[in-house]
């Protein structure tokens, strides 16, 4: 029971991070129907900007952890969002109206470019850092096994919940959210009714990238080590989460993120850690085969 609870706590933490990345996939897919293959790399860039941000904070002598976290969070969101915007502007926007697979191929190119750009600029080695929240407390002890919750896990869950709540409100209540939903339903009609479609799509990428930056920062703080390649696996797992929850659906992305976190942690905890990535990929394949619309998604209707 104690082991189970500990695994569950770890799973929720990991799931929160996947959920944040998954939102970026799901929103972009919802609005322009493309898989933003480079989104994992945007997450990686966010993690790197956070790493450098934390180092700058310690150089400047900002010792208080909450101040540093908020500063870095803000900085990483803003500058990673610039990446999201630029990618859309340079690599995806010119392709609207091209053949079906063009945006995906372009996204694969962007992903390769970003990985190698960071590798060239920052080196290929693992970068340790970001361990600024230490400690935790014992939740309870059972069967001689301590169930621990670290402060960091609480920070991660709080940041995720606050951001997701704010985000859902934004989609549901603000004019921007309304425009986004309009574009999702019918882009042509929305543009006829005076919605600036290009701008709305740009903002979608900006928001997705900002959330991926938060995920990157949390990932860095949680694992304490990153390299230029983390975006690939995290990206695929988050995409799996988005598909599992039902691509295009925001609550689905969060649910999917949690489920993928649970599956990964429990698989590693109870079966074998070697095959935990195989588990994630297998779930992706199984979901796509048996329930391509996901848990909370609407089935797609093919129109001629």
């Amino acid at each position, binding site marked *: 029971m104690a082991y189970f609870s500990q695994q569950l706590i770890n799973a929720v933490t990991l799931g929160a991070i996947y959920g944040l990345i998954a939102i970026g996939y799901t929103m972009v897919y919802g609005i322009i129907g493309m898989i933003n293959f480079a989104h994992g790399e945007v997450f990686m860039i966010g993690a790197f900007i956070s790493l*450098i941000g934390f180092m700058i904070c310690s150089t400047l002598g900002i010792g208080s952890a909450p101040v540093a976290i908020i500063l870095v969070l803000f900085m990483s969101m803003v500058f990673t969002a610039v990446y999201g915007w630029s990618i859309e502007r340079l690599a995806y926007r010119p392709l609207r109206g091209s053949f079906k697979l063009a945006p995906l191929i372009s996204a*694969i*190119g962007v992903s*390769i470019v970003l990985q190698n750009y960071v590798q060239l600029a920052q*080196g290929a080695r693992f970068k340790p850092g970001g361990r600024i929240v230490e400690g935790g407390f014992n939740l309870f002890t059972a069967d001689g096994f301590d169930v621990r919750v670290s402060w960091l896990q609480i920070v991660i869950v709080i940041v995720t919940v606050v951001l997701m709540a704010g985000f859902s409100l934004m989609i549901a209540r603000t004019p921007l959210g309304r425009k986004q939903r309009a574009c999702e339903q019918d882009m042509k009609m929305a543009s006829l009714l005076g919605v600036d479609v290009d701008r709305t799509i740009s903002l979608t990428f900006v928001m997705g990238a900002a959330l991926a930056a938060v995920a990157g920062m949390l990932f860095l703080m949680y694992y304490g080590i990153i390299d230029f390649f983390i975006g690939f696996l995290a990206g*695929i797992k988050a995409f799996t989460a988005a598909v599992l929850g039902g691509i295009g659906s925001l609550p689905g992305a969060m649910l999917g993120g949690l489920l993928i976190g649970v599956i990964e942690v429990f698989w590693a905890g109870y079966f074998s850690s*070697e095959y935990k990535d195989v588990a994630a*990929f297998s779930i992706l*394949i199984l979901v796509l085969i048996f329930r391509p619309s996901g848990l909370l998604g609407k089935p797609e209707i093919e129109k001629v």
Partner: protein
Amino acid sequence: MGPRLPSMLKDAGLTAFVAAALGIFIVGFRTYDVSGKGLTFDYQFTDLAIAVATIFVGRLGLLLAAEGLRWPALVLGAVLGGIGAGPLALPSDFLHWFMALGGLLIIGRALWPWARQRMSTAQHSRRGLLLGRAGAKWFGWILIAGAVALPFAPFADQKTMDLSVLILTYIMLGWGLNIVVGLAGLLDLGYVAFYAVGAYTYALLSTELGLGFWIILPLAGMMAASFGILLGFPVLRLRGDYLAIVTLGFGEIIRLVLINWVDLTHGPDGIRSIPGPTLFGAVFAETAPAGHQTFSEMMGLPFSANQRLIFLYYIILVLALATNLFTQRLRRLPVGRAWEALREDETACRALGINPTSTKLTAFAIGAMFAGIAGSFFAAKQRFISPESFVFIESAIILAIVVLGGMGSQIGVVLASVLLIGLPEWFRELGSYRMLAFGLAMVLIMVFRPRGLISHREPSLRLHPVRPGGDG
């Protein structure tokens, strides 16, 4: 230029501003390890400033060129290229390349309308038309003749032959993937998995059971094809982009299994001392194992290490040409036409009574088969394989070859392989920028030439035969 200049300057300024925002953390601070002290960083703001200035000038030059102001653009391009290629010491090699290529880009953009006009007049003259038609007819044959004669060329040393074998392997893989991506329109991001299946089939059968290369070759092809069917059967109903992600997942699963199934595959250590191919039982080595003879003994030639390479070269040449011939023939058969029709409109095909799943399945299986055969050749050539050789990036490289060449174009695959595999190997110093250039090429091709380098494709079928001298 007058009134437009301020808005161009504003545009270039904005571009430079965005570039500065992109680069400030990742380029401006370079993190590195200090042993014992952990991570620390250097400031690289000079590099960043020079790069941003280059982007400003570059954007301005491109805008000027787009407005048709050829001379100012040419001057800017020449200045930029001159600084980049000149003796002035910049903080890093990368900046030299960046500025020089930026300058070339502006000059190219400025001269583009003029060059295009010249090209199109030349193409449409009677002479140009005749030349073009003769070229299209004979170009392939000339290439094949050159490829056959290559080992006897005076410059064919070991390095050149090695590289040619490598390029031909990628050409074969590119032609195999072209069936799946180019003809059937199925984006396969896990193609390297079938390559791995072929390589491991050969490695295991030859080291464990002692079977020969020529027996295993078709077996490896069949093995990979059955993996293709096994994977394809459930997933080919999916939409294009989902299919891409599923194949990517499948490729990764195969790789992870190869790493973790240590009893069978020796895990990350790989399989060593795989026997090479034989010619009528003769081996290519200095001394033959008992019961065999070496190639040099059989032919009465002095032994040379080059013989093995030349033999490998001809094997892969024949395999690649067989792939090509097979594809060209298939395109004329009903199943080949069904592939291309499916790529264009699946719903219409279904309405016409074509079974999409089984049609896609044949494309998938045939593509996989060629990858398996190529993989088996790869294992025989390297004599050592490990899961390292079958990572996702290999799939991306093969896909880049197909995309760059122009999906469905056979000759395009050849050009793209030479360009993407040959050039980086010749210019070793570009090594670390190679993947960066790959990625950029994929994006730029999609943006500017989505049909690839060779965008013209012979129709598989013509309603009326081409009249000589007509406009076809």
